[in-house]
């Protein structure tokens, strides 16, 4: 009967969306390293832990007032709830029950509740003995007043901070990655201390007019000496004792420098991961950034342009020199191969990235990155560099929206410069926004003041703007002349005054920034005035 009830309850939990959502919420709050709510929770917990430690230190020589005690109770309750929640999140009890039940049903063997309970308990005990859970438990204990000794466990409350600080975790990871080397060194150090303390005890025993009264003093002296701290409270008097001291200092120096070099090299190895984690964390905060693949000459210029226009971007390059160059310039860098799925996904190609720029000097790599990027995100904008004319078509086929050939463009620039320097400089000035005059597009919003109005009535001249043309995909305009095909739409150059603007059309205007911004504002306002959302 009880078994039936438990199995039914487990089924209910499995089917319940509320239960799943609640567990997911607590997982995001406590465990999910990707979630934002967890980082906020961590900050709150760090503050609470620190204030509780100060409170406990304060309690050492003063008595708690009512509020302080209340705060301590609140904290301990919070710690206990957190501990229990983590134990709950560690695994799914209902899954163990159902798995065993289904197994028993399949094999036609009896379902033993006792065995399942044992399995569940084993899992929970496994959790209890994980290092961080032990620290959590020990952090709760100092609040237990009757045993004053437990106050020493205060130190564990500080250790609880390990949970909330990523960098502390990293330090623990580094130590554990070098545990083999460290174990060996610690064993060696243990031997040294043992030999040193035995030696000093034999030579510096009070019977030999020395200061080392017992083995504890000897071990204390050996550790102080080997670590090159040397308080000097116990100093060898005999020649034998001094020889032991000299040997211990020299070997101690060697061992210590060895330990330090191991930790430093481990840090160096981890530095790469650390930097990349920082890059990924920073990227998560930006919506609509650009991914630049390849940081050669072209990539460098693209990055400086994006930086100038305050647009967020990340550089991906597999070459150490290029990654270092980008890092020195203060850019976000991922030192990896951009043609790898994982690298692009981690960089955020599927969600937050707005565009991918393939700027490597190798067309083969550019085609590969373009294909990968298009596969990972069919909607993303891809602009690729082609070094050879033969590969332009391939890049378009691979999914690039635009293909740019450095030498072709440079040659065009030279030809224009030679033929029409004045006209060329004018256009260059407009493109680079170096003059006060710029060329911009203004969208005809549905319901705005210019929607359904003829160009004659828009009176751009009075607004100190010059209309170059209209970009539109609307078939209504097809009858007009001066039509030039763009990708999926048409550009109507110098449209006649009877050209009636339709919603979605883009006006290409030339004018001062203030005049363009003012007109854009007017279009927006008229639209909101007509009750339409911006």
């Amino acid at each position, binding site marked *: 009967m009880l078994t039936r009830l438990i199995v039914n309850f487990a089924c209910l939990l499995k089917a319940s969306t509320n239960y799943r959502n609640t567990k997911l919420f607590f997982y995001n709050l406590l465990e999910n390293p990707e979630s934002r709510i967890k980082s906020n929770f961590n900050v709150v917990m760090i503050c609470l832990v620190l204030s509780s430690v100060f409170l406990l230190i304060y309690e050492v020589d003063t008595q708690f007032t009512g509020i302080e005690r209340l705060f301590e109770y609140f904290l301990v309750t919070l710690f206990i709830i957190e501990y229990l929640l983590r134990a709950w999140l560690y695994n799914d009890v209902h899954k163990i029950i159902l798995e065993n039940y289904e197994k028993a049903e399949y094999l036609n063997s009896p379902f033993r509740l006792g065995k399942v309970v044992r399995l569940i308990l084993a899992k929970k005990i496994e959790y209890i003995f994980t290092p961080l859970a032990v620290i959590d438990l020990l952090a709760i204990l100092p609040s237990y007043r009757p045993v004053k000794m437990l106050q020493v466990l205060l130190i564990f409350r500080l250790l609880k901070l390990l949970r909330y600080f990523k960098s502390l975790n990293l330090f623990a990871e580094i130590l554990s990655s070098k545990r083999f080397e460290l174990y060996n060194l610690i064993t060696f150090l243990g031997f040294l201390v043992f030999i040193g303390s035995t030696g000093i005890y034999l030579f510096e025993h009070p019977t030999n007019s020395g200061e080392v009264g017992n083995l504890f003093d000897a071990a204390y002296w050996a550790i102080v000496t080997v670590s090159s701290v040397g308080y000097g409270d116990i100093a060898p008097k005999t020649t034998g004792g001094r020889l032991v001291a000299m040997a211990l200092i020299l070997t101690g120096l060697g061992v210590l420098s060895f330990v330090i070099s191991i930790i430093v090299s481990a840090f160096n190895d981890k530095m790469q991961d650390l930097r990349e984690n920082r890059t990924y964390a920073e990227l998560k905060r930006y919506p609509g950034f*650009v991914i630049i693949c390849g940081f050669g*000459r*072209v*990539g*460098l*210029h*693209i990055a400086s*342009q*994006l930086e100038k*226009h305050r647009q967020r971007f990340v550089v991906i390059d597999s070459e150490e020199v290029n990654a270092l160059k980008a890092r020195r310039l203060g850019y976000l860098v991922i030192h990896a191969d951009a043609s790898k799925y994982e690298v692009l996904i981690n960089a955020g190609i599927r969600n937050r990235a707005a*565009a991918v720029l393939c*700027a490597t000097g190798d067309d083969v790599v550019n085609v590969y990155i373009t294909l990968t990027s298009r596969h990972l995100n069919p909607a993303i*904008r891809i*602009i690729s560099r082609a070094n050879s004319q033969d590969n332009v078509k391939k890049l378009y086929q691979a999914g690039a929206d*635009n293909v*740019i*050939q*450095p*030498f072709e*463009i*440079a*040659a*065009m*620039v*030279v*030809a*224009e*410069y*030679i*033929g*029409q*320097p*004045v*006209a*060329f400089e*004018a*256009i260059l*000035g407009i*493109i680079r926004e170096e003059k006060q*005059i710029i*060329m*911009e*597009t203004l969208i005809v919003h549905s319901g705005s003041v210019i929607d359904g109005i003829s160009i004659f009535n828009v009176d751009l001249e009075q607004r*100190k*703007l*010059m209309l*170059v043309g209209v*970009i539109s995909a609307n078939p209504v305009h097809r009858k007009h002349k*001066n039509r*030039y*095909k*763009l*990708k999926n739409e048409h*550009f109507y*150059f*110098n449209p006649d005054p009877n050209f009636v603007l339709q919603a979605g059309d883009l006006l*290409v205007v*030339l*004018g*001062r920034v203030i005049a363009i911004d003012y007109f854009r504002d007017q279009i927006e306002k008229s639209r909101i005035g007509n009750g339409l959302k911006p």
Partner: protein
Amino acid sequence: MKRIAVFGYSIMSLEVMSRLNEDQYSLVFIGQDESEAALVEEKGFASKIIDFRNDDELRSIGIGADIDIIFCFYPKDSDNVFLTFSARAIDKALTIVAIVDDPESAEILLAAGANKIIDPYEICGRKTHDMLAKPDITNILDAAVFGRHDLHIAQIEIPEGSYLENTRSCDLKLGEKYNLILIGVVDRESGEALHFAVGEKECTLNAGDVLVVLGPSREISSFKEEVEAVL
């Protein structure tokens, strides 16, 4: 017809030569060896082989005489600097266009006497950014500047005796009369700077002023003919 000498075999040299109109320019490729010259001749361009380090040989191809423009397109910046330096010493009025590999060499090239420095990577970087930030405008200006459609941007100098002399820029009404858009005017009286024809003070046109117009090539030619027809 302007005479242009192109130094150095590279993708750039071939691209530029194929883009320059053969009716307006007389092009000669200057190679360092037979193989380079043969490759260029295959594409239908004239070529000569000289050692650019020798001033006499430079003079022999017409620098200091009938060559108006030289392109220094050697892959090495030091070669381009040397050529620029030598050519400038021979002809003060020569137009020298040089490409640069290392951006730091740009200043040296300018100091050596180059008129225009082209950094293909910089141009490509800017272009990629323009394409990303303003795709519509970049597409249209591309079409206009690089003639990808029948849309062109052109500069037209007003000769003495043209019917446009002493007219005001706002009275031109190019949009209605010629299907052209007047982008701006270089008023020689006030210097070499281009005054955009929008929101700026109108100026009276004189001989020597330059009009920058945008429009279909046929309309540009007919307007040019009318402007250049001396009364």
